[in-house]
């Protein structure tokens, strides 16, 4: 894909970022905010977004109030699916809504041009996101033949309720069944530790995710000392379970070691989904290192990558020379997802409990109805 850049015709990635549902919308808004530099709430009035590539964003939701909450996403990039006021966590209703509005939604996307890669950001537990996203990915894949589709799936807090758990289970399965090129997992339950209260935890998680996505896009579209590209990314994401996550670590002046930064990006603290890389839970990885030349010792990096390769299997590395201490983004394809398995077990239990509860309620109600079986109304 060719795109006219500042220095003439350059190869630039055309990126589509779609946030579906409330969670996806908020992640998208965080990405847009980060693109402004993320400094001020008023930055949208005096600054402009600095995406490393041509990035088109679109927030899709059935609840208009969720769209209104967005601050850094342009109005033209907010798509309300009409005649709906949310789907009430009902994926069936959501799917109906998507099919009813599929053409309108796809027309809105196609109006934005052609794309090399699309990130579909959604929570798998909600109604709109979990129901729209698999169908949307399917539609995108059918319309954009060469597109790389990466769903970014946010797993819920486990205590959020049985419907969210069952939605997560079915949505994850559907997302894995469509022709996506891997999936990035983000586990809210795991990341909740970042902040005490849930409200600020959401914001922090969204900002962490936005920062890593923009880092990834920039890295895929930048001349590197050691090159990684979209193909490498695609290869990594197709490894293992085709489920992956993102790790990030930023060194500082006190600890400017690039090797420490690489290690830090792979530790559980730096990941969006809990994975024990040292224990062989990673199938493939792509390590993107950014920093000043002083901090980027290629030999050290190579040694560290070689060590990782002995554990992970295959590791792509990309080095971007920029000012400052080393920053490392790791893209990991997972071989084991115990957290997901646990979620499915919980979901299974939740579904059973829900079914039992409903049956008990129905039988109680039926028993109640039986009291008047032989009776008629008297007026």
């Amino acid at each position, binding site marked *: 894909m060719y795109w006219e850049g500042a220095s003439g015709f350059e190869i630039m990635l055309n990126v589509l970022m779609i946030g579906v549902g409330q969670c996806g919308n908020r992640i998208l808004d965080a990405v847009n905010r980060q693109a402004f530099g993320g400094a001020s709430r008023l930055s949208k*009035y*005096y600054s402009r977004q600095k995406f490393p590539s041509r990035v088109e964003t679109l927030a899709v939701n059935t609840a208009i109030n969720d769209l209104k909450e*967005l601050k*850094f*996403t*342009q*109005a*033209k990039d*907010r798509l309300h699916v009409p005649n709906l006021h949310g789907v009430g966590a009902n994926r069936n209703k959501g799917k109906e809504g998507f099919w009813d509005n599929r053409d309108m939604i796809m027309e809105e996307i196609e109006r934005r041009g052609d794309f090399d890669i699309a990130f579909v950001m959604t929570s798998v537990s909600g109604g709109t996101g979990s129901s729209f996203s698999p169908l949307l990915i399917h539609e995108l894949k059918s319309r954009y033949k060469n597109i790389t589709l990466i769903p970014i799936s946010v797993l819920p807090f486990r205590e959020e309720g049985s419907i969210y758990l069952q939605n997560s289970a079915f949505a994850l399965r559907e997302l894995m069944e469509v022709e996506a090129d891997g999936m990035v997992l983000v586990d809210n339950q795991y990341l909740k530790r970042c902040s005490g209260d849930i409200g600020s935890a959401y914001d922090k998680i969204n900002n962490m995710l936005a920062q890593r996505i923009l880092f990834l896009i920039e890295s895929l579209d930048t001349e590197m000392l050691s090159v990684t590209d979209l193909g490498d990314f695609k290869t990594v994401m197709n490894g293992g379970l085709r489920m992956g996550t993102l790790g990030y670590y930023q060194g500082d002046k006190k600890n400017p070691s690039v090797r420490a930064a690489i290690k830090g990006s792979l530790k559980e603290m730096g990941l969006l989904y809990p994975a024990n890389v040292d224990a062989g839970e990673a199938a493939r990885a792509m390590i993107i290192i950014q920093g000043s030349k002083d901090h980027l010792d290629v030999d050290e990096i190579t040694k560290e990558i070689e060590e990782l390769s002995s554990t992970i299997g295959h590791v792509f590395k990309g080095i971007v020379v920029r000012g400052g201490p080393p920053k490392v983004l790791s893209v990991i394809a997972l071989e084991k997802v115990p957290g997901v398995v646990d979620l499915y077990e919980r979901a299974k239990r939740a579904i059973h409990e829900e079914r039992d509860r409903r049956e008990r309620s129905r039988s109680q109600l039926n028993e109640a109805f039986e009291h008047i079986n032989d009776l008629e109304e008297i007026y």
Partner: protein
Amino acid sequence: MRVVHLVIIALLLAVHLGEGADESSISYEEFTLQLGDRVDIGSFRVELVEVQSIRDGLTVLRVSQSSTGMDEQRVLVLDRANDFEGGADDDGLTITVAAIFDDISAKVRIEYPTGIGTPRKRTGDVSARTRAAPSLIVTKSFDRDKLNVGDSVKVTIAVKNVGTDVAENIQVLDQPPLAEFLYIAGYPPKIRESLEPGESDSALYVMNAVKEGIVKVPPIEVRYSDKKDNIKSNQSKESSININPARRPKIELRMDPVKPINYSSTALLNVRITNSGQASAYRVELTSEVKPADGLRIMGPSIGRSYFEIPPGRTENFTVMIKGEQSGNYTVKLRASFQGGEGLVMEEDACDIVVLGQDYKYLYYLLIIPVVLIALWVLKRYREYKY
């Protein structure tokens, strides 16, 4: 008894005749006579008619003798004996004017033969005794008694004959010109040479005060003579006149302050010239100067103008239009020269005028434009992000 009587008469006559023959001596008497007074001796009568000239010692006496019909009026010189009818030695009279007291009285010595009788003085008519004589009174008056140096004063010399006869050879003797005055016209005063009784004449002259102070004006003297060339004189009263310092004009120039003038705009500059002094200012010439010379132009009418006279208390106003052609601070200097009594006097005034810089109004728009652009930009962004 008649015989007795005849004897006695005869004796007396004989005695008398005998005594006459024996007493052919001369007697004399001195009489102080006034005009009209007469002395009768026997058949002689001597009357003082006139004192013709005291200075020359001339008197006029009239001598008559009833018995002979002699009647003679003669001018007698003082202390010189005059014989009438042969004189006292020849049964006549010898008369000598011994002294002349004044115009109407004289001492007359009459020598006569002792036998002709006893002289008897008879007082004449009083009116006849009053001799007609001129009497002049003279006055010197000023039309003002207080004046300033440079003021003119009119001096009136008036002479009136309050006597009963014509005054002749009238001369007015004014003092030599006073140093405090400059005599302009009419000096020395001219008075008619003769004035009939009751007539008066006056003369007027004008002088300018040239020196301040209290001037004692000496009396003026008038000299005249009567018909007998008797010279008389009289003089006026002494007076004084106060000469204050000279009145001077005082020209005050004033230009009303002018608000700052916008570039290339005009404004009115009001100029007032007031004579706040006590005297008129003459030949007032106004000139102006603008500093710096370029940038502020006097459109008109010209400030340069002249007034022949500006009386005390009078104010002359005029207005000129000025135009600011270049921004800056300017000073308009106004200068007036005039005759101020002691030569040319200069007065000056100055007025500061500010010409503002060129008002590029569109600069305000330039200031607004960024604000508008920012507002539009913010609005655009707001609308872009408003959902």
